[in-house]
Structure formats: structure tokens, C-alpha cells
């Protein structure tokens, strides 16, 4: 079946603009994760959704970052008033549920803030 998809694959924006990144998880996966990966660095956890429970936002770096998820489907990560330090690859993953289940990752969105 289809894997996790993300769009756009690349996004170039100017400092101060808002951006929206989209993630389509694997159908039936109740858990959805967003990560940020700066060039040459590891993955930083941003936010996690599990079914209809309140999301775990503990990884969001500032109030400029927010995310929504519609039921157990599409998720959107929004970055307001982008800064140059927001430049990174934003990765989305989904899993059947949280815990020991394997996370399946999308290809990521490469964000460049000029």
C-alpha cells in the first residue's frame, strides 16, 4: 500500500512568512509524529498525535510552531513568521499506535528560509 507522503517536497520562503507543511499518514495508523532535522544533525521530536487524544506538544520549539490533525488522517504543521533557523527538513512518521510499533517515515519537506 501507499506509504507516508509529505508535501511540498521543497519549500523556499522569505523570513517572516508563514508556511504550511502537509503529511498524509498510512491509512489505519493512529499515531502521527512530526520531527525536525537540521543539516547533519539528528531528529528533533516536535509533536505527536494519537487518535483523538490531546497531542503531545512537548517538542515544539516556540509558539510560532503549531500542528493540527483531522481525525486519524492528514496533519498540517504550520510555522508562523519563519526565521532562518527554521531551515531544516521536516519529517512526518506514522505508526499503528504509539509504543513499540515501527514508525514509517515520509520523505520529508526541505524548508529553506531566506
Amino acid at each position, binding site marked *: 500500500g501507499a506509504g507516508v507522503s509529505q508535501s511540498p517536497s521543497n519549500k523556499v520562503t522569505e523570513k517572516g512568512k508563514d508556511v504550511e507543511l502537509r503529511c498524509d499518514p498510512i491509512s489505519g495508523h493512529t499515531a502521527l509524529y512530526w520531527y525536525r532535522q537540521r543539516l547533519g544533525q539528528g531528529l528533533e521530536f516536535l509533536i505527536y498525535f494519537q487518535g483523538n487524544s490531546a497531542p503531545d506538544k512537548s*517538542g515544539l520549539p516556540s509558539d510560532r510552531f503549531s500542528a493540527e490533525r483531522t481525525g486519524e488522517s492528514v496533519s498540517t504543521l504550520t510555522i508562523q513568521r519563519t526565521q532562518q533557523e527554521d531551515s531544516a527538513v521536516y519529517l512526518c512518521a506514522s505508526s499503528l499506535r*504509539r509504543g513499540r510499533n*515501527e514508525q*514509517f*517515515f515520509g*520523505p520529508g519537506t526541505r524548508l529553506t528560509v531566506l
Partner: protein
Amino acid sequence: LAKTTQPISMDSYEGQEVNITCSHNNIATNDYITWYQQFPSQGPRFIIQGYKTKVTNEVASLFIPADRKSSTLSLPRVSLSDTAVYYCLVGDMSGTGANNLFFGTGTRLTVIP
């Protein structure tokens, strides 16, 4: 919060066995150990997961000592295509812990011809 420590980088020649060790001194009773592989410009990919002793699949083996404070990912006879970053995660099997969300910086394995 169980944290993991891995070597930053390793080099190996083609055909050799590679062992990457991860330390997780604060691992909790409910925690599983999971390894992911990441190629450049791709998202990480699941390799193997275990709780104790030894787990083997078609790709790798995972060795976990009795105290579970470390684990070793073993890649048999590596090839150039195994050049990647390898991440060790420790996470709550019940799904209520936060540990499985922290990938860390991983180990960059370079396979040399």
C-alpha cells in the same frame, strides 16, 4: 527519561561485520530498544527491535545483555550500500512513555571499498 549514547561515527571495510553499541543506562522495565537506519535525503527506516537477549532478522542482529543497559546492533558483511546513519531508541512498550520519540544524533557508518 532514558537517554541513549552512541559513537558519532564509524568506518568499516566492505565485507566486514560491524557492531554499533548504544548505551542506555537508565532504561526502564517497560522499554524496548529499537534501531533505525537513515540514508541521505530519506526518512529513517526501521531495522530491528528487541527487549532482551538476542534478536535476528534478515538484515541485522541485536544483542542485549542481561542488565539491558546497552545494546549492540550487528550488521554482517557490510556493503557500500550500508553507509548510513544508525539511530538507537529506547521506548516504552506500553506507548505512554516519551522515550521512543528521541532519536539523538545517531552513528554515521561509512563503508569503505
